[in-house]
């Protein structure tokens, strides 16, 4: 594996989004993974509709919260095609699901894997390089005060409450770290990104990690 790998260098990661005052991180992480893998597979990088997942993934609760796994199961079972963000824009509140005809263009999820990588973050790096950006859940309580740098302490695992997108890693410095895209806008953290030390399952980054297949 390379010492440093970042899918942003390959122009397959969409810009940082802002979920605003809506608990929709779970939808942002899943859609972020799908639009990146769609671009890695050779399509033009296009932003897909988070609002469609928010409104239509009925096992989840829209702005009141949800689970990336339940959203992925819904996408896989229904074979719903995610339409572009411009067709079904984000409103930061839960709305009525809009349905589209089967002939309507969009991106469908074929399959996904999800694993617990604690103690195996080296293998998680391999998954990232092999399958593209990964949807992960974390404990982000201390992120309320985060300004930047590499998180190494006081961030528990096994108490996940937030969903993010792992887009890369960098092990060239003294502290190896994951490069993680958040959905709180570009004014938070490192222009919308957070760096988490690799090893020790900091913030629970390795608790439940999903790769998507289109």
């Amino acid at each position: 594996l390379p010492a440093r790998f970042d899918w942003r260098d390959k122009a397959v990661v969409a810009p940082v989004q802002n979920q605003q005052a809506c608990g929709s991180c779970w939808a942002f992480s899943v859609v972020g993974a799908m639009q990146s893998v769609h671009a890695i597979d050779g399509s033009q990088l296009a932003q897909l509709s988070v609002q469609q997942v928010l409104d239509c993934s009925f096992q989840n609760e829209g702005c009141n919260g949800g689970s990336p796994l339940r959203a992925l199961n819904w996408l896989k079972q229904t074979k719903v095609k995610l339409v572009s963000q411009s067709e079904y824009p984000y409103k930061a509140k839960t709305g009525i699901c809009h349905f589209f005809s089967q002939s309507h263009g969009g991106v469908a999820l074929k399959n996904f894997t999800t694993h617990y990588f604690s103690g195996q973050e080296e293998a998680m790096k391999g998954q990232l390089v092999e399958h593209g950006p990964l949807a992960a859940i974390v404990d982000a309580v201390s992120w309320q005060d985060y300004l930047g740098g590499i998180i190494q302490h006081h961030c528990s695992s096994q108490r996940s409450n937030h969903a993010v997108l792992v887009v890369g890693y960098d092990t060239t410095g003294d502290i190896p770290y994951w490069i993680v895209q958040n959905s709180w806008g570009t004014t938070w953290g490192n222009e919308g990104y957070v760096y988490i030390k690799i090893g020790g399952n900091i913030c629970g980054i390795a608790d439940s990690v999903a790769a998507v297949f289109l």
Partner: protein
Amino acid sequence: EAHSEEYNLRHLHFQNATKRHAYLNAFSTAPQSAKYGINQFSDLSQKEFRDLYLRASADRAPLFPGLKRTETER
């Protein structure tokens, strides 16, 4: 408005935030280490922040079948 109830509440949240920052920043002085401080969430209480932004739930995922399982894991 200054000294309105809302103002005093937000001011209290700010004060609590600065105490948290001192605690969080005390752990490591390594240059690359995370820094904590005033940002757009500093006037929210921890409960407000959690209720607004930390709404993801976790489903248990199977252990990645990479490494040989130790006896205990088996």
